[in-house]
């Protein structure tokens, strides 16, 4: 063991690529590399997750598909609030989503979308709520976050990349960009803080390592492990 390793073993030393693992109830993303970077080891429940992207169709739904497929095995609803295009039934089915759990909500305005998203997030009968609210203000996102805490469901809000420059109450923010046949992810903010390395995922072929160890709810709760010293947890940086 080198002298450096010895120093690094000291629990008071914090390394920049580490984040404090917090006990968060979560649903495995189906991508092992991404799970490792997310507190709780998956898409967190009872919070909203902001996915920021500039163009529809970079693979944002395929990224969520393994989790949605799992959640749809349960009897709760998966709600799509104001999707940008028609959700295509054969496509969702081919990803393993149980269509009888899928609910599409059409709205006429941003205000209605936010209302519907909030109402669904608050309902315990919804397992996941995916919302395309147009341009959501920080205040609106805060309302959604509170609603998700109440309904304990998985909330995903899609927004434009330019809002990455502004603070947001969403505990998890990920910026998505398209790469060559792959989806590039940059975690802008997560519970537990720390800098996350950029990820490049092949969204067409999820490597589902955590799928075998799920409880029937489809979620896993990882216990808090002292990956970084607890006092470093103030790193809830506003991304």
């Amino acid at each position, binding site marked *: 063991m080198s002298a450096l390793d010895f120093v690094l073993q000291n629990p008071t030393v914090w390394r920049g690529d580490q984040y404090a693992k917090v006990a968060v109830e979560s649903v495995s993303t189906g991508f092992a590399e991404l799970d490792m970077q997310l507190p709780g080891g998956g898409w967190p429940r009872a919070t909203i997750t902001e996915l920021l992207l500039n*163009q*529809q*169709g*970079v*693979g*944002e*739904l*395929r990224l969520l598909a393994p989790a949605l497929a799992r959640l749809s095995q349960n*009897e*709760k*609803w998966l709600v799509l609030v104001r*999707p*940008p*295009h*028609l*959700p*295509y*039934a*054969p*496509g*969702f*089915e*081919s*990803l393993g989503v149980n*269509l*009888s*759990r*899928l*609910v*599409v*909500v*059409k*709205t*006429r305005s941003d205000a*209605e979308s936010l*209302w*519907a998203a909030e*109402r*669904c997030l608050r*309902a*315990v*009968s*919804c397992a996941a709520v995916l919302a395309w609210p147009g341009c959501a203000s920080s205040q609106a996102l805060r309302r959604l976050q509170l609603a998700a805490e109440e309904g304990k469901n998985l909330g995903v809000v899609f927004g434009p990349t330019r809002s990455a420059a502004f603070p947001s109450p969403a505990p998890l923010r990920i910026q998505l*960009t*398209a*790469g*060559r*046949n*792959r*989806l590039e992810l940059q975690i802008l903010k997560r519970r537990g803080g720390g800098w996350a390395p950029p990820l490049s995922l092949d969204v067409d072929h999820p490597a589902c390592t955590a799928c075998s160890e799920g409880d029937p709810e489809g979620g896993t709760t990882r216990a808090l492990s002292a990956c970084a010293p607890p006092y470093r947890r103030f790193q809830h940086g506003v991304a």
Partner: protein
Amino acid sequence: MLWACLHFPDFSLQLLLRGSRACGPLVVTTGGNRPRILSCSLEARTHGIAPGMAMSAAYVLSPQLAEHPRDPAAERRALETAAAWAGQFTSAVSLLPPAALLLEIEGSLRLFAGLRPLLSRLRCGLADLGYAADIAVAPTPSAAWLLARGGAGSTVTDPSGLEAALAGLPVSLLDQSKETTRSLALMGVRTIGECLLLPREGLARRFGQGLLDELDRALGKLPDPRPSWTAPSRYKSRLVLPAPVQETEPLLFAANRLIQELTGWLRMKQAGITRLKLNLQHEDRKPTVAILGFSRPSRDPRRILALLRERLSTLILPDRVEAIALESAEAQPLDSRNLSLFPEDRLPEEERWLIIEHLRARLGPEAVYGIATHPDHRPELAWRCCEPGTDVAAGMPVKRPLWLLEQPKRLGGDGDQPVLDMPLMLIAGPEQIESGWWDGSDATRDYFIADDGNGRRFWVFRERQGTKAWFLQGMFA
């Protein structure tokens, strides 16, 4: 037999007062050219207004007085809907117009765990309806009716105690002519007890057999059959508001009265409703109609009210509302449900549908739907909108996009390369689809998966006939 009589004093006034939480001075009048006051609210009394007064005199005392002429037909209808509500307590309800109901409750005592719980349920229920009733219980219907009007709250369960209970009531309560009552008073007979002390033969000779028979029926010495009232198969009820309103909260308050009545009727029918129509009636306009739909038969008043609140919040009322009318569709049997061995392991079925109903109440019924696959090769027909929760057998697993464009978008480019802002690269295909020649919307197309070089993947097709143009139909989001 045990009878409960619900008597509604000042029924015409109660019908108005129940529609609002608080209202100004209010009177019910005889109507006509020179209306006189029949009954007046407490507020009106404080202004010095009393029954019997002429309206012109009352207006002097209180200029902002609200006047409603008495409507006996409406009272009759209200009594009938109250009877429908009371049907949840017993199968034998009979009307005693103008303002009383008779309930035969002996058969229900066991179900409601005794008389006291039953009476308190009745009182709570009546309070929810906005009625104040004098309730009396007696072994005969006539005695219950006399007791309800003479001494509210009396409960006589033993036939032997009946005579003593009735003895103190004034003879004016009996259903006899004014002359009979006056003659009895002149004789110094003021109470039923005094009347019973008189020799029967003399009484019959002087006042006819009718008086004796009435007394005998009250005491249970003569049979007293009562026709039992049958509730209609649909619920329909109207409530006149004491003062026109436009705000949601007062409307909900009034609607709640009718919803409570409706759910009582549903409990009697052991059923739920899936459709409900609320008419908001204006003075000189067509009524505004709010229709509520439930995905599962329901009779939970809170649920109906919550949905109505959602619906009313999006409704734009053109004018103030004078009266509301609630109308139900045919009642439907409630979903029977097996209780789970381990509670809490499943989401209650109603809970699942609540959110769908809520969204629909606010956004409209078409705005919330599920999707299902449909066996058709043409991509635009291979799916259907459906009720959320519809199970359809899975089709063949093929690679399909997640987003479909409402209309295929014409792409630029010709020959072998479509162009969407920039030339697209075809990475998979062609998949030839040729179908639908029989119904006029035939499709003969070559489908490809195309990449725009920025990581986005599209589902495009080329017509195989005619212009051979390229179209964008979907996105692999």
